[in-house]
């Protein structure tokens, strides 16, 4: 029996939603600082407006809630807060972008914001090469926040922990606790991210100056932005040409390394960083990733080789493998133009990249997609079933796998993995059908839909300002649902229905 939500439920949701919005709003001070540093006056006003508005909304939500201190949050509250927080933050985060004048409409600005928060990387920005440093930094910062998790941000600083905190954490598609206390887990995630932020920015800045010939200040700015996009497997870049702009193999190699850093499970980072380095190659996610990466790389490079698209191994790596690893890690950086996918690549190579995008990499990382843990579990389940047929009926067949510790494969795990995998596949196909409805060819529609729902960001040219409005909304929903891995989105839907059908 579904219960109709009570006023207390709404107050709990309002309180925690308000806290998350406050945390998100405070982050707008960072682009204001950047605008001051770069001497950009108008963006200071744009972000100040957005900051005051966001803080006002956050405070209003908290004040309206007037929640007594000891109130507990249930799983339902946690899920609803998470899914609503992403939508509210999208609406608020889009305001400074709209005010900059580089987005044709509020919908386009919302698309870009959700693309950033969900670490997708599909863009609708116009004249990106003349965008202010402040607005550009905001695009990349929301990728950093979204990749870490907006809830993780709130947990780190604003929500004081407690049982409700874990429910928020899980609602944002992070089930794994790295440390016993979820707030400590959130803080560890930040620690890893900041250490890599410093290292990655320095490495990319060095590449920018020495390998690319960029001025130092721009190299540092680009380094920080591209690090946030690469580590959080987002895919935004400060220039319209994406990674092509840098015209440098060293820059491309550095971004590949950072993309792979970002696609490793934070639990594995913890294990490796505390001395258990061998866990990296023993983990089921990494082993599955190695297999799938090999398969899609072979598919794509064979497709390109047969079509004589790129001549020579270096060219195949820079233009072929780069797109594969960018797609598989869910980043979306491109070293080719979007139209070249459809105009030059051929079907086999495109299928390789679509598969790469569909898979994703690790759970509890910054990547999207089905995730290697689920692919690995389903593969092991198939293997176990085949083994059962080959052994005697009285034999007990069990399968073990390593995911930070030795675990046994059970039906509940496989069921959960299979359900989410099916949901992703349906989402990819659903978006493809909508694309076909608007007249795009099936393979291109599937490519773009998988990119949106898998939070990848590679584009074959469908995502443009002139795209139909309904298709933009479809991709926004796909990015949102894909990032949150469905459950909190479904719970929000059920919560809204329960207003009418609950007892």
């Amino acid at each position, binding site marked *: 029996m579904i219960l109709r939500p009570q006023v207390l439920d709404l107050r709990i949701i309002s309180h925690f939603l308000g806290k998350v919005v406050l945390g998100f709003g405070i982050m707008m001070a960072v682009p204001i600082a950047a605008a001051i540093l770069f001497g950009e006056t108008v963006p200071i006003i*744009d972000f100040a407006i957005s900051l005051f508005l966001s803080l006002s909304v956050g405070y209003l939500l908290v004040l309206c809630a007037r929640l007594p201190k000891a109130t507990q949050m249930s799983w339902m509250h946690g899920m609803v807060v998470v899914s609503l927080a992403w939508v509210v933050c999208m609406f608020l985060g889009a305001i400074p972008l709209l005010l900059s004048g580089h987005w044709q409409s509020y919908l386009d600005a919302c698309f870009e914001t959700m693309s950033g928060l969900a670490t997708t990387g599909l863009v609708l920005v116009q004249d990106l090469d003349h965008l*202010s440093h402040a607005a550009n930094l905001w695009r990349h910062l929301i990728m950093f926040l979204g990749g870490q998790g907006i809830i993780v941000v709130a947990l780190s600083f604003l929500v004081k922990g407690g049982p409700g905190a874990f429910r928020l954490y899980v609602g944002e598609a992070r089930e794994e606790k790295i440390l016993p206390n979820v707030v400590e887990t959130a803080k560890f995630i930040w620690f890893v991210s900041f250490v890599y932020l410093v290292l990655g920015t320095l490495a990319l800045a060095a590449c920018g100056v020495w390998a690319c010939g960029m*001025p130092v200040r721009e190299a540092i700015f680009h380094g920080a932005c591209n690090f946030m996009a690469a580590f959080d497997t987002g895919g935004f870049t400060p220039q319209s*040409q994406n990674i*092509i702009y840098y015209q440098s193999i060293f820059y491309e190699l550095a971004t590949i390394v950072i993309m792979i850093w970002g696609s490793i499970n934070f639990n594995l980072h913890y294990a490796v960083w505390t001395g258990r380095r061998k866990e990296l190659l023993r983990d089921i996610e990494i082993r599955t990733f190695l297999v799938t990466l090999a398969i899609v790389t072979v598919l794509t490079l064979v497709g390109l080789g047969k079509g004589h698209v790129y001549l020579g191994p270096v060219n195949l790596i*820079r233009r072929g493998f780069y797109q594969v690893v960018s797609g598989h890690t869910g980043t979306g950086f491109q070293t080719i133009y979007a139209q070249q996918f459809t105009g030059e690549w051929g079907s086999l190579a495109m299928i390789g990249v679509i598969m790469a995008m569909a898979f994703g990499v690790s759970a509890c990382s910054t990547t999207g997609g089905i995730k290697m843990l689920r692919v690995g579990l389903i593969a092991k389940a198939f293997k176990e079933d085949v083994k059962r047929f080959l052994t005697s009926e009285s034999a007990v067949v069990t399968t073990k796998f390593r995911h930070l510790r030795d675990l046994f494969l059970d039906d509940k795990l496989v069921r959960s993995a299979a359900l989410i995998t099916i949901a992703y596949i349906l989402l990819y196909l659903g978006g493809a059908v909508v694309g076909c409805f608007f007249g795009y060819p099936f393979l291109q529609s599937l490519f773009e839909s998988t990119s949106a729902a898998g939070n990848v960001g590679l584009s074959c040219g469908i995502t443009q300002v002139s795209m139909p409005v309904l298709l933009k909304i479809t991709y926004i929903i796909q990015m949102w649902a894909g990032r949150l891995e469905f459950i909190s989105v479904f719970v929000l839907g059920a919560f809204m229905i329960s207003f009418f059908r609950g007892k």
Partner: protein
Amino acid sequence: MISHKSQVTSLKLKLFLICFLLGIWNLGVVTVFAQSISSADLIANAKAHDGKIVEYEGELIGSVLGRGDFVWLNLNDGANAIGVWAPCSMAQDIRRAGSYGVRGDWLGVSGVFHRACVEHGGGLDIHAYGLIVLQEGSVVHETITRKKVLLLSLFLGVLACLLIIHILQTRRSSR
């Protein structure tokens, strides 16, 4: 003996010829870049243009990326930006690159187009034979509109009221 009048006529004729030839040359330059190809066409029909000499023009964006004796220039014609590989000597007249608040120099380039340049890792680029600054860049001043100032004041006021309410509420609950 040549008369003064015929000398003047001869001089006028020579001057006219020089001006005419200069005019033709300028027209030629303008004509060449009036027929320049768009980035969308280059990318969409890359195979057809591969290895051919093309004329392309666009705004220089980002910065001039120096690579020893050569430079990379990324030129954006409004639709896409394409990388141009040129000797340093060709880039000496360039003054501005486009960014926030700056319109970069509008450059015209003629050179060999490569769909997948073997020299540069398979990238789509143009190796320049000739480069010209068609239009110099300029600074673009953005102004703060009255609408934005009003919005700023409004939301600041709303936030201040909410903060006051929050403080009063906190004091009341602590009593």
